[in-house]
């Protein structure tokens, strides 16, 4: 249990609930009630049923034979891209919408970067007939247009955020402000393992279905539930948290998180928080942040809107600090090449975010007998415009 959250919401020195008093009542209620609710039989029953019949779980664990041949090592893809709405994000929003109903909330807010979490939130709100407001950086609104339209079609209100860099961090600020202004009827569905305790733990639990399934599927397909290593991209880190969760205490399994290097970790245009960041407090959590010497948050950059965040979930900061997980960074250029490789070797077009994990295959040493699991967190449908522009089709 070394890597689980403690009673005060900490992973080692990271985490906590650094909230303004205006958020105390809501966060405290969540903290007191989330475990009791999500561990109740009725909750579990409805959650599992929806994951199966609505999300389409379990997601396949696919042996990618041509990619394996290319790298000279066994590569498996955990196909979260095949979930309803095209990413792992729905695992969490299903959990939180059921929780919100238990708490008697009638209005849902969310932040979104690439729009995957926004779509996943708008989807569960449509499913349950609950009002939904999604905050999205104005820059992301323009670079992820299809997802914006989907959210609207699903009945959500999408509010473009014009402050700061107009990306995920700014959308998160605005969602927090909304929650402060609407403390009674509203539940804030945070999309990643960030924010005040209990969000990082709660979101990780909802996403942990990924690694629970992996264990079963690996046992069936390889004869052992333990792979050599698991690779996942990390922005806030929810798909990585889910993919690592049930392997955290199995120290023989190597865990690798891949951050967005943007144009390079030695440039000013990067989102590789753990490479360039230092400890600090943002969005109610003590974690590792990209900041200047005065403690002002610096603007991240990545081609991938979903990884364009200057912080990282406190669990990952702790895994980094303790050395339990290794963190690499892949540049925009490396990522686009990885997109093309998977597309043409396996006929699967991955999301820009997920392709960061694929790009890391070029950065690690693999033996022929190794079992490498890539968490393919999302589909490339939302990124087609970027791909077509870049590859010139």
């Amino acid at each position, binding site marked *: 249990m070394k890597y689980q959250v403690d009673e005060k919401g900490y992973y080692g020195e990271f985490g906590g609930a650094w909230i303004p*008093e205006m958020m105390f009542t809501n966060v405290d209620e969540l903290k007191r009630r989330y475990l009791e609710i999500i561990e109740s039989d009725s909750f579990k029953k409805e959650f599992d049923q929806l994951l199966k019949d609505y999300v389409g779980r379990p997601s396949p664990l696919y042996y990618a034979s041509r990619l394996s041949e290319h790298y000279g090592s066994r590569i498996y893809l955990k196909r979260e891209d095949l979930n309803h709405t095209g990413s792992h994000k729905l695992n969490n929003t299903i959990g939180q919408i059921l929780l919100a109903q238990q708490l008697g909330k009638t209005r849902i807010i969310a932040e979104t970067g690439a729009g995957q979490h926004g779509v996943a939130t708008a989807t569960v709100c449509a499913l349950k007939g609950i009002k939904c407001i999604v905050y999205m950086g104005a820059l992301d609104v323009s670079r992820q247009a299809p997802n914006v339209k989907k959210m609207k079609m699903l009945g959500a209100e999408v509010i473009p955020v014009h*402050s700061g860099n107009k990306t995920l961090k700014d959308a998160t600020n605005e969602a927090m*402000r909304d929650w402060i202004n609407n403390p009674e009827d509203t539940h804030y569905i945070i999309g990643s393992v960030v924010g005040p305790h209990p969000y990082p733990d709660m979101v990780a639990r909802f996403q942990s279905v990924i690694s629970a399934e992996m264990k079963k599927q690996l046992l069936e397909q390889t004869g052992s539930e333990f792979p050599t290593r698991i690779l996942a991209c990390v922005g806030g880190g929810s798909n990585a948290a889910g993919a690592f969760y049930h392997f955290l205490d199995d120290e023989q399994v190597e865990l690798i998180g891949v951050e967005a290097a943007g144009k390079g970790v030695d440039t000013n245009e990067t989102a590789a928080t753990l490479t360039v960041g230092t400890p600090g*407090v943002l969005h109610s959590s003590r974690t590792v942040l990209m900041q200047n010497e*005065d403690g002002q948050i610096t603007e991240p950059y990545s081609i991938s809107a979903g990884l364009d965040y200057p912080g990282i979930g406190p669990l990952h900061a702790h895994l980094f600090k303790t050395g339990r997980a290794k963190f690499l960074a892949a540049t925009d250029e490396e990522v686009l090449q990885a997109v093309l490789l998977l597309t043409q070797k396996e006929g699967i077009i991955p999301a820009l975010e997920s392709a960061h994990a694929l790009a890391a295959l070029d950065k690690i040493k693999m033996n022929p007998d190794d079992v490498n699991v890539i968490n393919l967190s999302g589909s490339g449908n939302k990124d087609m415009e970027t791909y077509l522009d870049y590859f010139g089709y």
Partner: protein
Amino acid sequence: MNNRINQLFERKKENILSVYFTAGFPNLNDTVEIIQQLEKNGVDLIEIGMPFSDPTADGPTIQRTSEIALKNGMSIKVLFEQLKTIRESVSIPLVLMGYLNPVYQYGVEKFCQKCNEIGIDGTILPDLPLDEFEANYKTIFEQNNLHNILLITPQTSEARIRQIDDASEGFIYMVSSSSTTGAGKKVEDFHADYFERIQAMNLKNPRLIGFGISDNATFTNACKYASGAIIGSAFVSSFSEEVKTADSVAQFVKNMLTAD
């Protein structure tokens, strides 16, 4: 106890006017003049805002002034340099208000020592919650005669208000409605029942009401329920390029203190 906040509340029991401004706005070096003018025109307590890139408890006005102040080059280091000799000319209590991260990077202990050296009387750090403050920083603050002012809101439970009252020194910052700053909810719209409920609790600490105070009417109304009130967004919005800072401050304070 020689903290100026306590002295103020001993001396004055009602109609205390506290004004917030963002340091570095409108111009980097306006800080000292704004403070001097506020005191000269009858303000009782000043909250000096330390700008932060991500002010999640603030509305659009203070987001904007913070952004400009940061662009102008404001930082805690620059602010301390500007305030170095402020006690030669200003005697009312001064409180620094801002978010934790810049203070954390500056070094909390070094920050408190510097405040003490300059003659800062308190801090308001909205994202430093009570339990973390008590567990990590209380002793450092006390050693430097610095009061960390805590907030309560309409949602704060009675038990927690008691807890905050016990832990508070100086005064309690009573957030008038559930909102970010400058959210445009008027004091008239606030629940008088909330104000009366808190009044009836007979807290040990005096209270100042903040958020949504924008003119003489809202100030006067708030003062019925507390020792005074805090004005922030309305004050920083009052600056314009055409009017000299000194004149602008004088006019604003006069309007706040005079009924139409």
